[in-house]
């Protein structure tokens, strides 16, 4: 049980799944009721999850192990040392909130974008929410892997059933890519478990081992469990590959444009908003914490891949004429920033990466919704088909401008905060741990990426919204409906709020990020 006396975190994890079960009672043909039930459950989950930041204690004393809060732990398979173990720290706090915030918004958007088999879609959506929150809070490697893999199933179904023409190819590619990446992580988890058990059993006979992430991390730090360098690098690689595919990092990104373009709007929003963050979250939680030396060793190479991803994503985005593809490639670019920040291995870099994860979830989620709005009206997403939309749909134009600027990183909005912190971190990483890992060349390319982001986003905006209404088909388009205004308005609130008061987000994560970076000696210099 947690410090609260009742399992708050477990309720947040399992409430959506419970809702999915309840949805089975709704008649299959009653679309309206299943949408409302789904909205109700996900809104309730969000309301409960708001208690997390309120009750979160940002300044726990630095402990030997990652200090988790709201911990619920029950034995699951005792003889293996597997337990149901969930907990929350500053790293996962905002990601959980992002998930519970994005899900009801996405559900709300399905009124306009999902028209067949509504009940099945809502069931999958709620199951997916449980799995995603589960990934962020699982503190047991076995449990983590189960949640991690389970996110695949609902998402693949969403793309495959509700997607557009080429949906099956996209769904299969998405599933196989991520599955293939994860199986190596499974081997790494098994290997870690056995190595740890044998190391501890040498001094404590009869030790059955554990999959508890905190315990393993604690033993690594105290030195009672030592990984040989080569082995640590191999395990690091197995974990990293799974996360890099999910993120997706260049050159493992090829599933992303397919998945995004084929997925229904709601699927794209969840995919961009939350699912991609599972990968970068995993890097922080597992790669940095478990294999600090290997992280330091690999950081320059990963930094180069990240920078390539930033530039490549931006340039490819510029070449797109389909707005959804453009947004999809911009994700590759933005997630490159996140990885760069993480492997700066200093406080400001990792914090910036976390903020950027939240920001990317909000702005890119909003961008996909905006593209979905116009697609529902015109059934095309080609920039060339539009022009002068602002004149026809003024509210739509205004909201889009705000989101585009946020995504491009305009100071005063949320995007700027994350990118600035990441670049600062990468610059300071010149001397992390006594080794040169990143430094100004990386920052230079990152800056180029920011400029390119402004270029491709404003080109899209200019092409579709500015000028005269060239195409007569666009002249009669209706502006945003009340529901759409609510959906997008809700997303705009944090976009502005984070831009103005970034410290609200930074403050709770400070201790936890410091704790993750605990082993990097250059931490103090990085602050």
């Amino acid at each position, binding site marked *: 049980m947690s410090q609260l006396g009742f399992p708050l975190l477990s309720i947040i994890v399992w409430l959506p799944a419970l809702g999915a079960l309840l949805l089975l009672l709704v008649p299959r043909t009653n679309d309206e009721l299943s949408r409302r039930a789904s909205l109700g459950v996900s809104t309730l989950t969000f309301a409960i999850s708001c208690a997390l930041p309120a009750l979160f204690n940002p300044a726990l004393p630095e402990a030997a192990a990652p200090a988790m809060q709201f911990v619920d732990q029950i034995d699951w398979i005792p003889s293996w040392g597997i337990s149901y173990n969930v907990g929350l720290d500053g790293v996962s706090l905002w990601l959980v909130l992002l998930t519970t915030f994005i899900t009801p918004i996405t559900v709300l958007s399905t009124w306009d974008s999902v028209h067949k088999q509504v009940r099945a879609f809502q069931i999958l959506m709620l199951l997916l929410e449980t799995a995603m929150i589960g990934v962020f809070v699982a503190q047991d490697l076995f449990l983590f*892997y*189960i949640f991690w893999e389970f996110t695949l199933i609902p998402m693949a179904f969403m793309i495959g059933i509700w997607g557009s023409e080429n949906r099956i190819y996209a769904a299969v590619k998405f599933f*196989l890519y991520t599955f293939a990446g994860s199986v190596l992580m499974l*081997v790494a988890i098994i290997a870690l478990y056995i190595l740890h058990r044998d190391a501890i059993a040498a001094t404590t006979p009869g030790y059955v081992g554990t999959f508890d992430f905190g315990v393993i991390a604690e033993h690594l730090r105290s030195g009672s469990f030592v990984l040989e360098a080569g082995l640590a690098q191999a395990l690091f690689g197995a974990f990293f590959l799974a996360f890099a595919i999910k993120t997706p990092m260049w050159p493992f990104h090829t599933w992303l444009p397919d998945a995004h373009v084929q997925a229904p709007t709601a699927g794209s929003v969840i995919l961009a908003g939350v699912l991609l963050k599972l990968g970068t979250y995993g890097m922080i939680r597992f790669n940095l914490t478990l294999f600090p030396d290997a992280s330091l060793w690999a950081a320059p190479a990963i930094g180069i891949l990240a920078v390539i991803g930033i530039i490549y994503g931006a340039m490819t985005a510029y070449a797109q004429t389909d707005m959804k593809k453009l947004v999809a490639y911009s994700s590759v670019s933005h997630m490159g920033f996140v990885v760069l920040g993480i492997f700066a291995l200093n406080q400001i870099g990792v914090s910036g990466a976390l903020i950027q994860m939240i920001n990317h979830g909000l702005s890119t989620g909003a961008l996909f919704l905006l593209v979905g709005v116009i697609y529902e009206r015109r059934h095309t997403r080609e920039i060339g088909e539009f022009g002068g939309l602002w004149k026809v749909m003024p509210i739509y134009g205004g909201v889009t401008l705000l989101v585009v600027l946020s995504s491009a990183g305009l100071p005063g909005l949320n995007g700027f905060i994350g990118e600035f912190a990441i670049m600062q971190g990468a610059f300071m990483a010149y001397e992390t741990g006594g080794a040169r890992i990143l430094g100004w060349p990386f920052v230079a390319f990152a800056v180029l990426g920011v400029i390119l982001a402004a270029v491709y986003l404003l080109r899209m905006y200019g092409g579709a919204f500015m000028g005269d209404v060239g195409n007569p088909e666009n002249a009669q388009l209706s502006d945003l409906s009340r529901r759409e205004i609510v959906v997008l308005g809700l997303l705009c609130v944090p976009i502005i709020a984070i831009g103005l008061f970034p410290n609200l987000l930074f403050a709770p994560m400070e201790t936890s990020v410091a704790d993750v970076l605990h082993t990097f000696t250059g931490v103090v210099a990085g602050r």
Partner: protein
Amino acid sequence: METIPIPPVDWSAITPILVVIGWATALLLIDVFAIPQDRKRVTGYLAIVGLIVAALAAIPLWGTSSVTFSDMLVLDNYSLTLNWIFLLVGVLSLAMALDYLPRQEIEQGEFYPLIMFAVGGMMLLAQGTDLIVLFLAVELLSITLYILAGFAYPRLASEEAAMKYLLLGAFSAGFFVYGIALIYGATGTANLFAIGEHLASPAAANGENTLLLVGAGMVLIAFGFKVALAPFHMWTPDVYEGAPTPVTAFMSVGVKGAAFAAMLRILALALPTLRPTWVVVLGGLAILTMLVGNIAAIAQTNVKRMLAYSSIGHAGYILLAIMAIDAERGVQGFLFYMLAYALTNLGAFGVVIALEQKDEAAWSLNDFTGLWGRQPELAIAMAIFMLSLAGVPPTAGFVGKFYVFTAAWESGLGWLVLVGVLTSAVAAFFYLRVIVRMFMQESTYVTEATAEARVVGISEAKDASPLLYRGLASGITVAAVGAILLGLIPTPVVVLVERSMLALAP
């Protein structure tokens, strides 16, 4: 004249087998004399009752360990757990056959007792500790299956399957007997405990043991045929495709499980000292089997053949557990995997049966197209089975693979584990393809029944789909629920298999 002393016999050690065999013998007669031709289903129900009674009769034996018939048979927790798994396999197969046989108009009362005899043979394989007993058990099992494979008699494919299985079965039996002879020649005994003792003695360690190695190799080949290890797997797709589907389902889990069970006992009791030798041989076979099974399955468009190749692939994973018997979790992993695999594979074949019409080889992937729209429950069940076979959490298949891979890693077979996970990633493709067909493609396929229904004015395609009969539906439900429960709450079964120790000495 001196009388031959009869060794004391502990009948309780073979109670479950006695119940099964005795019940089956009686049922054969009852079927002929008491059950009218049009009510053969009753025989099936009686057979199911018999298997359940045997399972209940085994409960009081838990925890006891005894050796009887001059050390030729053993009762330990290992064999008891296997007996339960085999009885479950028998019950589920019978439940599925109850619908299948009348629908295919091949119902004969003998079918049900024959399955019981086969189950008896499987249980004997799990309990035998003497090569001769194992040979008898293999033959009991195989002979019944030769008949069962050809049970859809006028259908050519079924006859072909029976013939093929018979020929290769006879071939492998030859290997088996010759192997036993050579082992007997080398060690002077056919008893597993005695062979183990002989090999552990210092004299054997230094001496020449070519004869024994050749003999052991031949026994291994015989089992390789039975469990369908590559390169002894050639018969599998043809036989699995041709045999009546419930028989295929039964073979794919039952025969495989029983033969592996005996193989494990041989390796653990008789040949532990030769582990460095056989680990290399079996390791090569395991890699080959995992590759061949999973890669060949990709090319199949016939679901029955695809499941046949997938079962070859799974034999490779089970072999990993068998090779890991020196690690504590090897035996456990084998038992857990067997249960998970049995439930899942039987369920998958159950769905194939549900879609199979009379005179119609409805095994093409196309028949699964749009199943979600026609029969959603069936589609969801099949999706669970496919995900479980692929090893995606939270299903039984995932926990089983996890168990086996952990055991294999513990016993130093890291490379094999790597091949194992990579081939399971490959395998995900063809399992996923079935799901794609069922959920993501619209049905363009019109069965004859649907067309007929349209003529008489029933527009709902759903009404025209083959009805799910109670036996089949409950079989599939049990398998699907089991596959999910075993994935979410594996603890009770883990506790069970952890206590299922092998008796290592008489």
